[in-house]
């Protein structure tokens, strides 16, 4: 894989995930109705939020690396903890407070999370070319 610009790759990952969220929500809307589509969309949106947080943390880590080399790992590790906590909170809000359909939410979350692999394949495929 070629990571000349992490900004470009983050956009590409975000685009693939956004496409997966939209497609999945549409499928759920066609086959299961609106409440299932809302659940699937919410589950996918959690992953999109995590991708955005990662991208922002990467930018700040790159700035930190210029000032204090080696310290950027701490920032990235904190970002991992942050994503872990945010995921728990968002699921709790979605299932507990908003009472969204849990199974489509899990499916949406899982599929969009795994679309990371698809974007990875696309990036590596592009770098080979």
């Amino acid at each position, binding site marked *: 894989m070629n*990571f000349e610009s*992490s900004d470009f790759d983050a956009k590409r990952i975000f685009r693939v995930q956004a496409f997966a969220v939209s497609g999945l929500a549409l499928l759920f809307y066609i086959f299961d109705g609106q409440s299932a589509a809302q659940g699937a969309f919410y589950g996918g949106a959690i992953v999109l939020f995590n991708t955005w947080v990662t991208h922002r943390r990467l930018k700040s880590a790159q700035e930190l690396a210029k000032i204090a080399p080696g310290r950027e790992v701490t920032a990235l590790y904190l970002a*991992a903890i942050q994503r*872990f906590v945010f995921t*728990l909170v968002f*699921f*709790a809000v979605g299932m507990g407070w908003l009472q969204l359909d849990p*199974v489509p939410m899990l499916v949406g979350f899982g599929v969009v999370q795994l679309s990371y692999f698809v974007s*990875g394949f696309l990036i590596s495929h592009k770098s080979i070319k």
Partner: protein
Amino acid sequence: MSPDVINQMGAVYANTVLVVGLILAFAAAASAIGWAIICSQYLSGIARQPEMRSQLMGQMLFTGGLMEAFPMIALGIAMFFTFANPFAGSFLAAVGG
């Protein structure tokens, strides 16, 4: 609902809570171990070739994202058991509650 059924229902919830705790613990541990391996390899990589830092960082984050996919899905399943316990419904259906 008879006291016996209430007791069994309590056991279902107690076991679910135990399983949720285990899932969260294993997901957190797996994520932490994965990140530790990825970060240590990243640091050893920039120690060998400091000029590769920016490329390695991108690679590290991407690999971290791949690694984190499964612990995150495990978190989602744990939350599903917490807020929409499927076993309680199955139990009630089985006892005809």
